[in-house]
C-alpha cells in the first residue's frame, strides 16, 4: 500500500503484496529497472506502523543514524551502533533547517557548523570566500514543463518556446557557469549522446514557428525559490522576444499555469534506470529497456519531441565543509555520505 502511494497512479506494477518475508510485484510488462526504482528517494523505507498497527513513537530507521529528536527546527540523529553497514564515525548529527545560506556559511566560518549548503549559483561565491567546497556531478535536471493543452496544445508553439530559450544566459549568469547546458533528459556523462540534442537558441526559428500568431498570455509558475523566480523571469523575457506574453506566478497546489519550472532528479544506477525514474517523475509510464543506447535515445527523443518538457540545465549539488571534516564523499544523488565522514578532533 505504501509503495502504491509512493508512485501514485504511475506505478510500473499492477499489484504488490507480501508473502511471508517476500514482496511480490505483479505487472503487465517487464520491469527491468525495478530495483533501481525502488532504491530511489521516493521509496525510502520507514516504519510508519508497528506490528500491532499503532503509530510508532520514534522513527528509528535502519541506516547509520537513528532519529533522536526534532526540537525547535533542529533534527538530531545519533549513530546507529547496530547498523548493518557498521557504526558511523560521527556520534551525532544535528541538522538545522530553514537556515539561510549566508548564515550557514557564517556558522561554518565560526565553527558552529561543519557542513553547509552551497546552491549551484553560489559555488563561485563560496570559493571566492575561500570555503572548502565539494561539488557533485550533475544530479538534477532543470527543465521547463510545457502544458500540451489549452493555448499550447499546438506542438509548433511549444517548439517555438523551446527554441526561444537562451540556456547560455541561465548557465553563465544566473548559475554562475555551474549549470551544464543541456537539451536532453540525461547528461552527456551518463549517455554519451546528449550532444545530439541541439542547445543553441534560435530566435528567428522561434518567431518563424510562431508564424505571426499572437498567443494568449501565458503563465510560468515557480516555487518560492528566488533563483527559480529569476530563471522564470529570464525565460519570460526570452519568450517576450519571441512574441509570447508570459507572466511569472507562484506555484499553487493545483497547477494552472501553462509553463512550470521543474527540478527533476537524475537518479538510478544506470542510464536506463535514470531515464525511467525521470520519466516517471514527469508522469510518463514508459519502461525503458536496459543496456540499449539506441532504445534509450529513441525513447528520450520521442519524449522530447512532444515538447512537453524542455531540458535546460543539469545542475550539481555542492556543500561547503569545515576544516575538521575528513573523508566526506558525496553519494550518487549529490548528498553527503555522513556515515563515511569523520571529524578531526579540535585538540
Amino acid at each position, binding site marked *: 500500500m505504501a509503495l502504491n502511494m509512493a508512485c501514485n497512479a504511475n506505478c510500473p506494477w499492477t499489484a504488490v503484496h507480501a508473502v511471508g518475508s517476500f514482496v511480490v510485484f505483479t505487472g503487465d510488462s517487464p520491469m527491468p529497472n525495478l530495483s533501481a526504482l525502488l532504491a530511489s528517494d521516493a521509496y525510502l523505507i520507514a516504519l510508519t506502523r508497528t506490528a500491532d498497527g499503532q503509530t510508532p513513537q520514534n522513527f528509528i530507521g535502519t541506516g547509520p543514524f537513528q532519529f533522536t529528536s526534532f526540537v525547535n527546527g533542529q533534527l538530531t540523529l545519533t549513530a546507529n551502533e547496530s547498523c548493518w553497514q557498521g557504526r558511523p564515525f560521527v556520534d551525532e548529527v544535528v541538522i538545522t533547517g530553514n537556515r539561510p545560506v549566508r548564515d550557514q556559511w557564517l556558522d561554518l566560518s565560526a565553527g558552529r557548523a561543519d557542513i553547509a549548503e552551497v546552491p549551484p549559483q553560489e559555488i563561485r561565491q563560496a570559493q571566492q570566500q575561500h570555503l572548502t567546497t565539494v561539488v557533485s556531478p550533475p544530479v538534477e535536471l532543470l527543465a521547463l514543463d510545457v502544458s500540451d493543452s489549452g493555448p499550447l496544445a499546438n506542438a509548433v508553439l511549444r517548439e517555438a518556446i523551446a527554441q526561444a530559450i537562451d540556456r547560455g544566459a541561465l548557465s553563465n*549568469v544566473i548559475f*554562475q*557557469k555551474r549549470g551544464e547546458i543541456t537539451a536532453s533528459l540525461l547528461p552527456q556523462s551518463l549517455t554519451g549522446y546528449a550532444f545530439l540534442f541541439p542547445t543553441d537558441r534560435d530566435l528567428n526559428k522561434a518567431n518563424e514557428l510562431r508564424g505571426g500568431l499572437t498567443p494568449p498570455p501565458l503563465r510560468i509558475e515557480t516555487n518560492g525559490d528566488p533563483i527559480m523566480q529569476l530563471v522564470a*523571469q529570464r525565460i519570460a*523575457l526570452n519568450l*517576450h522576444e519571441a512574441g509570447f*506574453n508570459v*507572466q*511569472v506566478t507562484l506555484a499553487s497546489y493545483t497547477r494552472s499555469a501553462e509553463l512550470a519550472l521543474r527540478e527533476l532528479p537524475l537518479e538510478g544506477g544506470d542510464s536506463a534506470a535514470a531515464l525511467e525514474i525521470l520519466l516517471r517523475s514527469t508522469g510518463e509510464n514508459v519502461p525503458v529497456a536496459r543496456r540499449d543506447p539506441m532504445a534509450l535515445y529513441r525513447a528520450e527523443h520521442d519524449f522530447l519531441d512532444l515538447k512537453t518538457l524542455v531540458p535546460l540545465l543539469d545542475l550539481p549539488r555542492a556543500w561547503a565543509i569545515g576544516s575538521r571534516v575528513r573523508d566526506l564523499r558525496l553519494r550518487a544523488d549529490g548528498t553527503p555520505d555522513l556515515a563515511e565522514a569523520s571529524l578531526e578532533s579540535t585538540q
Partner: protein
Amino acid sequence: MSLRQKLLLLFSLTVAAAVAAVAWTVLVRIRHVFEMRDQEETALFVSQFQREFQHRSQEVAAAVNRLAKSERARAMAFDLAQSGDASAYLTEAQSMAQDAQLDFLEIVSADGNVVSSAQWPARFGYAEPAVASASATPFLKREDLPDGLTALGLFAVHAVSGTQVRLIGGERLDQSFLADLPVAPGMQVGLYGDAGGVASSDPAVSAPHPSTQAAFDPSRVLGVNGNLPGAQYYQSLIDAARTTGQQVSGIVSPTNRREDSLNATAIPLKNGQSNVMAVLVVAIARSGMVEAQQRIRAIAYGVAAGGILLAVAFSLWIAARVSRPIEQLARAAEEVAGGNWDARVPPRGRDEVSVLARSFNHMTEQLVSQRDRLVQSERVAAWRELARRLAHELKNPLFPLQLTVENLMRARDLPQAEFDEVFRESTATLATEIANLKTIIGRFSDFSKMPKPELERIDARDVVERVRSLYENAASHDAKIRIAVDVAGAPMPLLADPELLHRALSNLVLNGMDAMPDGGVLTLSAYPKGETVVLRVADTGQGLNPEECERLFTPYYTTKQHGTGLGLAIVQSVVADHAGTITVESSMGGGATFIITLPRAVS
C-alpha cells in the same frame, strides 16, 4: 392704481434695482477675488511641487553620483573591463540600490547592455537605450517591471569614474512621493501614469508616448492612500494635459453641489524628449471658498432684503408725504364736483403742491363767491321775472277794472236806467276780471304748493289712455287737431303718483295743442327702453329755437302771450320727483317732442 401705489412701486423698484445691482456687483467681485485666491494657491502648490521635484531630482542625481564614485563601483568597472565577465555582478545592482536607498538601479556596460538590474534582475544582457539618450540632468522614465507592469521613476545617469560603465538609478514616483509633497488640508494629489499594464514585448523599448496610449483609466490615478477617489472626474483635465503637454486647470464637479467642486490642475510630467510620461493632478476643495461665498451671499441677500424693506418703508413714507396733499386735493375736487363747494385743502409748506392747494382753495372760494353772487342775481332775476310776470298778469285784469270803475263813476250822472245798464255791465266785468285775478293767483299758489308724490304701481299704458280719453273729445271739437296714440302692447309698470303724472302729461298735451293753432297731429306714445319707460308727446307745430329749448323749463319762462311760465316747470318738478328726466327735441317748423324717461318698476 392710486398715485401713492404708483409712487410706492416706482420707489421700491428703483431702490430694489439699485440694491440688486450693488449686490450683484459685490458678489461678482467676491467670486473673482476668491477665484484669484484659488489660482494663486494652486500656482503656489505647483511651484512647491516643482521645487520638490527639483529637490528629488538632485537627491537622485547625488545618490547615483555617490555610487558611481564609490570604490566598489570602480572596482567592479575595472573588473568588467579586465575580464569582460559580467556574470559575477548579477546581484550587484540590488545590493548597491539597497545601500543607496534607490528604488531603481541598473549597471550598464560600455556596450549599453545591462550588467545587473535591481528592479528586474533577469534583464541582464539586454540593452538599456535610456543610457545612450540620457543627459547629465535627471529625467523621467517609465520602467518596465518583471510583473508586467511599469513604474514611473525619476532617474539619473552617471558613469563610473574613469570607465564606460554607467549607473542608471532612480526613485519611484509613487504614493510615498505623493505623501512627501506639501499638501495643504483639503487638497488632493494624484499621479496618473497611463502606461501601466502589460509591458512592452521588447524590454529594450521604453514605454510609448502617453498620447498614443489607451483611453483614460481611472484606476491608474494613484493617490496618497491608494487609488485617488473620484479619479474619473479628472479625465478631461488629464486627457487635455496628455494631449497638449501643457498645464491645464479647471473646476471639477463630482456632484451637483457647488461646495463639492474642486479646483483641479493637471501638470504633465515629461521625459527628456518632452513626451508626457505622467500627469500630476492637484485638486483643491472649493468647499471653503463656496461656503465663504455662500455666507457672504447670505449676508448680501440679508442686507439687500433689509435695504429693500427699509426702502419700501421709506418709499411708503415718501409716497404718503408726496401723495397726501394731492389726495386731499383730489378728494376736495371730488367734493366740489359733488356740489360741496366749501371743500378746502390745508396748504403745507412752500412747494408746488402747496401752491396748488392754495390755488385750489382760492378757486373754490371764488366759485362759492361767484355761486352766491349768481344765486343772488338769479334770485333777483327770478323776483324781477316774477314781478314782471305778476305785473303783466295783474295789469291785464286791472286795466279793465280801472276802466270799469271810471266808467261807473261817470255813469252816476246818467239817468237811472242808463246807469243801471252801465252798472250791470260794469259789475259783470268787475266779477270777470276779479275771477281772472283769482285764477292767476291760484296758479302761482299751485306752483308753490306742489304736493309730494304718493307712489303706487301703475301701468304707463293706463296713464296714456287716461290722457287720450280726456283730450280726444276736446280735440274732436276742433277738427283741425288729431290725437294719435302709439303704445307698446306689453305692460310697462311704473312706480308713480297717477294724479301727478296725469297732470304733467296733460300739461304737455295742452302745450302741444296750444302750439298748433292751425291744427295738426298730436302723438302720444309709450314704450319700454331697457330698465326705463319712455313717454313721448309730439306735436307738429312751429317748433322751438335752441334758446327756447334751453330755457323752456325755467319757471315763469313762456313763449305764449298769456302763459304763466309755470306749466313746464311743474312738469319738470313732477318728473324729477319720480326720479325721471325730461328733454325736448325740436327744430323750427318741425314741431316739438317732449320725452319723459321714468324708471321701470321692479316686479
